[in-house]
């Protein structure tokens, strides 16, 4: 049995309640031996990361809550020379502030940058999954409880199997079996607006064909002349936009290192 978090990025409104609730619980509140008090500012045991993609007016934003992954094979545990870090029966990983000597070995060992250093107290500190609350009758950590859109779920990994199916984890290549799962993290997009520069009208229903190394996508422009190809992996793409009676527009070798807004694309009528 192990506790896990499942976060649906598509349901996250970016309100920061999770980050703020974590601060309310831990900043200035000493929960030793689960955790010493977090400094008033500067540490983010849960940090909400804002990701802005695209350029005006094709801009999309998503937010990713980052916290300790409470990994099954947590590298911090082995890195600690003082046995200050341990896994609870419920899978949550705790740094015992009474045993931590402030050597920072765990901070170097964590590939997720989830551990912070408290200069004043000379302690390594991080998310405890609010274990002090779980042991006292509460059913969820503060971040989950404060989420107004139910984008965060907390529970037994087994019970969450349906939600975990198809979900991603951060840096899976670490092989540490992280237990914070993310659903619906958007990848890159290619988007634009197609218009007729003579009539000054958007072109509705234009066919947009996207190709990357033999893989194909197809869509048509909507009521606003817009097309969106979302969730594209990083790669090189060729795009052909065509519509009856118009010369096609062709874009080759579009690089989706970042999301691409092709802007307002003129489509010229055939002579």
């Amino acid at each position, binding site marked *: 049995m192990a506790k896990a978090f499942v976060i649906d990025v598509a349901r996250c409104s970016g309100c920061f309640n999770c980050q703020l609730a974590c601060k309310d619980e831990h900043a200035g509140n000493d929960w030793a031996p689960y955790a010493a008090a977090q400094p008033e500012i500067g540490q983010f045991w849960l940090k909400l990361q804002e990701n802005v993609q695209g350029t*005006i*007016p094709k801009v999309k*934003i998503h937010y990713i809550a980052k916290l300790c992954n409470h990994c099954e094979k947590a590298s911090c545990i082995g890195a600690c020379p003082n046995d200050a870090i341990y896994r609870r029966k419920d899978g949550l990983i705790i740094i015992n502030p009474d045993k931590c000597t402030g050597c920072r070995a765990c901070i170097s060992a964590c590939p997720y940058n989830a551990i912070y250093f408290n200069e004043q107290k000379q302690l390594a500190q991080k998310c405890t999954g609010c274990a002090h609350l779980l042991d006292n*009758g509460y059913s969820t950590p503060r971040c989950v409880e404060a989420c107004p859109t139910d984008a965060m779920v907390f529970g037994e990994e087994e019970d969450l199997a349906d939600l975990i199916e198809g979900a991603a984890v951060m840096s899976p290549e670490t092989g540490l079996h992280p237990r914070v799962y993310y659903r619906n993290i958007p990848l890159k997009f290619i988007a634009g607006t197609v218009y007729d520069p003579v009539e*000054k009208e*958007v072109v509705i229903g234009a066919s947009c064909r996207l190709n990357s190394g033999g893989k194909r996508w197809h869509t048509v422009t909507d009521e606003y002349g817009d097309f969106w190809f979302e969730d594209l992996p990083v790669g090189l793409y060729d795009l052909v936009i065509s519509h009856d009676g118009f010369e096609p527009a062709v874009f080759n070798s579009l690089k989706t290192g970042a999301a691409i807004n092709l802007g307002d694309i003129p489509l010229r009528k055939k002579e």
Partner: protein
Amino acid sequence: MSKKFPPDKQNIISFSLMGPESGGPCLVDSNDGEITRIRPYFYDEEVRETCNPWEINARGKTFRAPNRVTITPFGLGYKSRVYSPNRVKYPLKRVDWDPKGERNPQNRGKSKYVRISWDEAAQIVADELVRIKETYGPEAVLCQADMHGEGKNVSPSHGCPNRLLSLMGGYTLQMRNMDSWEGWFWGAKHVWGCEPVGEMAPQANLFPDIAKHADLLLFWGCDPETTPLGVVSHLPSRLCYWLSEIGLKSVYVCPDLNYGAAVHADKWIPILPNTDVALQLAIAYIWITEDSYDKEYIASHAYGFEKFKDYVLGVEDGVPKSPEWASEKCGVAEWTIKALARDWAKKTASILHGNGGPYIRGPYSTEPARLEIMLLGMRGLGKPGVHQAKMIEWNLWNKDYPVPFQGEFVPKMPHICDALRPVDGDVDPGINMKRFVLSPDQEKRAPELKELFRQHPAPQQFIPRTLIHKAILEGHAEWYGLQCFSSSQQPDKNNYRKPTSEYQFEKIVYPREGLSKLHMMWTDAPCQVTCWNHGNLMMEAMQHPDIECIVAQHPWLENDCYFADIIFPVATKHELNDLGNDMSSGAFTSIYLEEPCCEPVGESVSDFDVCARVAEKLGREYYDAYTGNLTEEERVRFFYAATGCEDYMSWEEFRKKKIYVIPCKTNTEELPAGLLGFYKDPENNPLQTPTGLLEFTSTAIEKHMPDDPERGPIPKWIEAGESHDERLSSKRAEKYPLLCMSNHGRWRMHAQCDDIVWNREVETMKIRAKDGYQYEPVWLHTSEAAKRGISHGDIVKVFNERGIVLCGAYVTERLVPHTCYVDHGARLDPIITGKLDRGGCINSITPTSQTSKKASGMAVSGFLVEIERVTDEEMDGWKRDYPEAFARKIDEAAGVCLAGWLMGEDEEVM
């Protein structure tokens, strides 16, 4: 573990920051006399089984009330607010203000404070009140009581000074302008009536109707993820997700990719600030020229459409309001304007608002507001799915709510204070005054309250909040209309002032004949400089030698407080006993018992008790009359009795359970949605306009002010006028080429919560620059930043003729070029008082003039500025020339703080 389980205390405290109504409850745990944590309130199984939780069913899906209050960042962070280093901990006196000698009014906003005793502070204020009254008459005291403080009832945040001043024989009332509704109130009302504020009314059953019948949602200047937070909860967010899920398309028309658009928009149409009129006229132009509007509806439901049509087509002025014409004005591509007009013509669409924000709070905001109603009219307003709906204040002025959480019983909460009371003679029982008297039913249930609610004479003189500075500096002011929120200036034969748009045409002059000008100010809403028009001018006014004494009462030392001569420390609601009422957070309505989570910080007391202590110095009779001889706990007890809740839950049970959740009304989906009655039968369900119809040509304006170039009978595009010259086409734009947009902050409620240290770590709340100071962000498009050599995080100055505001550059793709964006409400931190602010208080440089010459609202968004990077040399120059401003202590986490404004020796007392 230093804290205990279970906590010593678990209290229920509200999180709303609206004023009298309390809003959603939070659970506040305390240990050893200190707040430990603040959590959302959960509705347990029993509640959910017995209280008819509401749901909306549409298109095969169900939207349910959440099982808890969806707490906001303000509620969550309030511990930081209670223990803020910004708290006023004891009475303060400005060090160089001597009521018996030199008053140094010119040093207000500059000089520091010393601690004095409660006894001394109360005595000074009592003596000043008596002296001013005897010298000039009672109207020489301006009472700046208002709204949008903490939601408190038995010791309200606003209006306590009014009660005491009424007892003393009167005062001059600061009349709040219709700040949330300017365009609706001064404009839309003349199209569709819709009393009291000009937004669509009624709002009954709107969201179930929209979910069933609409397929397009136009979020016009609306941010459903921001504006509702201080008032409602996150329920609008959940609703937006659901409406998208069932297939409704969301189009956002706004200069910024606001927080709602960021996560809910299917289409974002960026538009230059305050140019919506051009887009709206072009949409009308397309519908008229393509014959795609509802002509039958217009024939039967509209008045004066032909004149409007002539203006749109250019028959009147030779300028067709075509997409080509509009595109240049509003910055939206011609093809996108046409696409929006055609998509809207094909679909069933509602327009959504969080009251309107910058869209109806700019120069000439009457015009976009009026045009919106006309466009809705051309689509058959009132038809299923065709509405103007609100994402905020679902309970306000609504018998039945747009989201069906209203209780089957409405508690009759007494309102003890009259911050917004009308002036002499105004006894309109329908809208406002009713709140401030004890109804016969309430009196029967709680006779103990009778003395507390004894009515005293109403004030004889008032000044709109938008004109206080001019009234003081020029000794004279005149304006049109603007009475207490909705009531008329002209009493009818029963001496009732009925809500009507007619009184907007009445000219009013200050000072009234025979009454004194202002010589003293008393504020319980010290946010004028950071929330109203031209804050720098207000600072100058507060330094005027006519003003002999300024008194502030507030929990935090901020903004207008720096200009006060005496400051009283006020306790937050977490430190007091109260009776909370949640009519707005959206899952259920409820009444709850609020008990102190901790001792009052320092020597702070409730707003009610601040005035009681002054009353005590005036004499026993004043104290008795003011307090009604009731303690705070007694007021809670008898207020509960007055609400009528005892018929449902006894006081004993209520004390034990601390909350009475009211079962939801059932069958609300059967109520006619919005203006369905008018749609179906306009003759028998007329609008509150003179003709009863949708007035495309206003008959009232035609009658009273037909030649007003700034608000004529037909809404128009106004390039510039006598009141405002704030367009990119202006000559001023050569020096100030950016249109500054300003909205409600996501991390503040107006001026409240600027000091929540954890919110301040969010980058769109504050940007910590290289000098370590947390600057208010100014959003700037990547291209505008590049033009000016500005990088993300740079210290920049935002400026125009009215002054300079320092900000941190937030370089982004979320804002249209040629503009910048700063939230209102950041706390003032003056370097040169009245000229240069470091705190990011953008309203210090907002326009002076009102909405227009004859519309007495404020214009605080869509004005010209320029932005430059602040060089090290420039900053060093300020540091050299104004060392005392830079020497003030700034808290690393919370920003400006009490210690910065105390004389040196007092800092140790902290």
